[in-house]
């Protein structure tokens, strides 16, 4: 756990608080906004810092423990910052049958990370995924919103290079939306 940030610099900006509050009318309880709030923070900061938890709890009128309890159930949310590109290599059965384990291993070698790790330059976080629902394109990789379909070992170098470009675009705010 990182040391606490100074109390004068809240993690949630006034805009984020307003965005969370804007969801109040949609749900009969505040607690239901836990996941949307966590997603909002995660999308902006690429992680959910510990300091954000009591702030979210305050907006939702909950105990920080309730937020933390829910958040840690979903392995999706991390307390350490990830890369600008978060990539999942699917390892479930349809992808595994078509070489996903080998793709994941080569991608780890190419990026010098273990599954779940982030490259030294902070650009790419590489994880394994369980069934991404892209079985018709096995083996599949999801990198932020970009889908790499039917990936062969020969394409791994190129895809890693593309993910680096994607990460730079994200970092300097010039990313092209995928839709």
């Amino acid at each position, binding site marked *: 756990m990182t040391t606490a940030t100074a109390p004068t610099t809240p993690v949630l900006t006034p805009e984020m608080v307003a965005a969370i509050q804007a969801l109040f009318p949609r749900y009969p309880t505040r607690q239901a906004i836990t996941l949307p709030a966590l997603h909002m923070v995660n999308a902006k900061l690429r992680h959910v810092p510990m300091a954000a938890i009591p702030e979210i709890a305050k907006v939702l009128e909950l105990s920080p423990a309730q937020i933390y*309890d829910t958040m840690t159930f979903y392995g999706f949310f991390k307390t350490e910052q990830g890369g600008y590109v978060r990539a999942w290599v699917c390892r479930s*059965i349809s992808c595994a049958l078509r070489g996903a384990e080998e793709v994941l291993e080569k991608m780890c070698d190419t990026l010098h990370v273990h599954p779940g790790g982030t490259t030294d330059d902070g650009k790419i976080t590489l994880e394994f995924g369980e*069934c991404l*629902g892209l079985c018709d394109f096995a083996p599949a990789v999801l990198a932020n919103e970009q889908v790499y379909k039917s990936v062969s070992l020969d394409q791994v170098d190129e895809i890693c290079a593309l993910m680096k470009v994607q990460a730079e675009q994200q970092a300097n705010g010039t990313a092209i939306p995928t839709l």
Partner: protein
Amino acid sequence: MAEFEPVLTANIHKPDSHTLPVYEAGGGYQAIRKVLGEMSPVQVVDLVKASGLRGRGGAGFPCGLKWSFLPQNHPGPFYMCINADESEPGTFNNRILMELDPHQVIEGIMIGCYATKATTAYLYLRYEYPTAYRRLQQAIDECYAKGYLGDNAFGKGFALNIYMHRGAAAYICGEETGLIESLEGKRAWPRIKPPFPAIEGAFKKPTVVNNIETLACVPHIVNRGVDWFKSMGIPADPNNPRDPGSYGPKLYCISGHIEKPGCYEMPLGVTCRELVERYGGGVWKGRKGKAAIPGGISMGLLSEPEWDTKLDFAGPGKAGCLGLGTAAVVVLDETVSIVDFLHNSCRFFAHESCGQCTPCREGTSWSERILYRIKQGKGRLKDLDLLATIGDSIGIMPGTTICGLADGAAWPIKNALKKFRGEFEDYIKRTNPTGYANSQPVEALEVIGLGAH
């Protein structure tokens, strides 16, 4: 078989199929207008009941019957939850519908909400579907702009809001009460039933949870009628009063070792072999098939000689599988080691067990470790008995868990041991010639490498 006309996928090949103008040009939003203009909610429930539509999410529960369980004189509010957490390995039919024809899904939600008097619908979408998220949100926005959603939808006094709610990469959220817990902002721990969601669901109110494909069928039932829907599929077995039959079109997914992986629409009841050979272009690379998952990995395995099994709601069960599940077929060719298959399956369920019930949490984790040990050449014949014990003791069926995740974890183990036991024994003897007969306790191998989690 008479020539089959696809309906659920009729739009998906059109340019901009995900937009409102294209959907309406193909007759979209006529069914909801008909419903709002001519039918009472009870009539809609009765219509869907009469059609025999069964849930497409895995359990196959009759949809109209589920709707009819809502209490009559309840002050409300009633909620609709749409289960778009599709995460069953091999399954992607809902992704196709949401990405390529989101308005068809929304029209189904509208009719479902009218029938169940729900004024708020939460569409619980798995996080890993960003394109579906954007297109559904865009479609919902289009509907609000056109007056098709809101307090007075279609100018008929019909009030409905649809909100997207994104998951966070947890398989268990596809279980309907796990989904509700997750929606409420808690751990997705499935609830003990009863009470069923129809009585006490989201926010303690009567709630219906329906799958995307199930709802997508509803506008077509309204437009084309019960007779049309029942003209497809496998009729109820007259000798089995508990069999509701398998009617209507179904989106079958084929993946794995197949020439043409994809999503194919056809009437319920196609055989696995027909699906593989006629639609999937056969087993890839000219190889022979070894086995196929009939409907998502939790349904177990059909060995190649069993591929003439009909993929309707009753068929896979007759071959010892858990059921039709999501009708997602995954083909294993003759080169696949059954050890590798089962290790992959056990690893998945160990990763996705929610941890609430001890038999599931521990059983899935032990089975993964045993399979890993076998895979690494340290297996013993006794390990197969241990696996069988786990397979027989975790799940709703032996009465040890709250939800069916553990049954889904157990079934591949049971089927693989029953149908491929000889291969397991050969593998263990070949890879562990000096230790295979050992029946004393052995140290667990540390699960390392890419399988770590």
